[in-house]
């Protein structure tokens, strides 16, 4: 499973990528929507993108639409620090999963497994 992590909070993304790596899940980190879109436009394929909803510039919801047009096979999971009901409804309509911060790593891995159809036990776990 190849995962793209997109969030403007760099420390958060780096720590999350490290934890996923310890669990045998390869994750690439970018810190803006524009960087993420550029990767996909250049032909990079990811099984699933984990997107922060609110980011400077290109936000998660618009990014999901643009990347989905380029790579219809890519799946998406949203994460957010916002908590309003409207945010939740919008996010839930736009992606398969919508997880609030702080994240529970096990819930994230379960979500990644469900959207990609790859069971967490199938990853080459080092943990």
């Amino acid at each position, binding site marked *: 499973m190849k995962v793209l992590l997109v969030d403007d*909070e760099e*420390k958060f993304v780096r*720590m999350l990528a490290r*934890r996923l790596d310890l669990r045998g899940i390869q994750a690439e980190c970018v810190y803006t929507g524009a960087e993420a879109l550029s990767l996909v436009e250049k032909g990079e394929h990811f099984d699933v993108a984990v997107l922060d909803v609110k980011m*400077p510039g290109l936000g998660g919801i618009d990014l999901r639409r643009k990347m989905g047009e380029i790579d219809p096979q890519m799946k998406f999971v949203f994460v957010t620090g916002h908590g309003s009901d409207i945010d939740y409804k919008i996010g839930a309509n736009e992606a398969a999963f919508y997880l609030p*911060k*702080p994240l529970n*790593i096990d819930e994230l891995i379960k979500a990644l497994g469900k959207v990609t159809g790859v069971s967490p036990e199938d990853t080459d776990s080092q*943990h």
Partner: protein
Amino acid sequence: MDNTQDLLQYESLAFFGKINASISHELKNIMAIISETAGLLSDLSDMASTGSPVAPDMLTSCTASIAEEIERGFATIRQMNRFSHSVDTPVQSVNLADVLALVIHLTGYLSFAGKVRLKPCEAPKPVVLTCPFLLQAITYQALAHAFKTAEAETEIAVSFQPRNDQAWRIVLTGINGTELQDFPDTITRRMAQSIGVTVHGDSPAGRLELEVPQTLEIGQPEQSSTATPNGSEG
């Protein structure tokens, strides 16, 4: 709800809610980083207990990160505290530089926040008698509007100018002049009128001025809109 006073109270409450929402988002992000870092430390601890080597610099990096985020959290809570206490006294003497410093911190939590430079004010100090909460709301909206419309990487400069003995001007420069016609919005205009603040936009110069009277007269009538030579309303 068509009573002007009720509308102003509701709009003030809405502004209070908006600021608290942005602060809570910031605090959640901080908690998320601390949570992930603590989780990583837990993972590394599990690895160590099974005999796998753990690099010391990884532990140092994690603990330093937690310490930094805790300090960031405290700084955010300090701003939240200052903002919350700005409603303690409806009308009081305030230093405009202090008001703008708080507003710059608060607008920094916006996802579209840009760069701001607050120019130090030479003597005399820009002190006015006003409603601090409403003045914060007006300057917040002005700065947020500037961020939304500014070109990427543009720095908004904020300075203060005395205007005779009657008022001080808060001056914002570096703004996209073509968007100045959209400011102030109806709510911000109403707030400004309620405390005697007038808004002047200079589109060609990319400049926005908020004129704050030295003294707020309680119960002063709403000011009628007057167009400045470049067409902006006060």
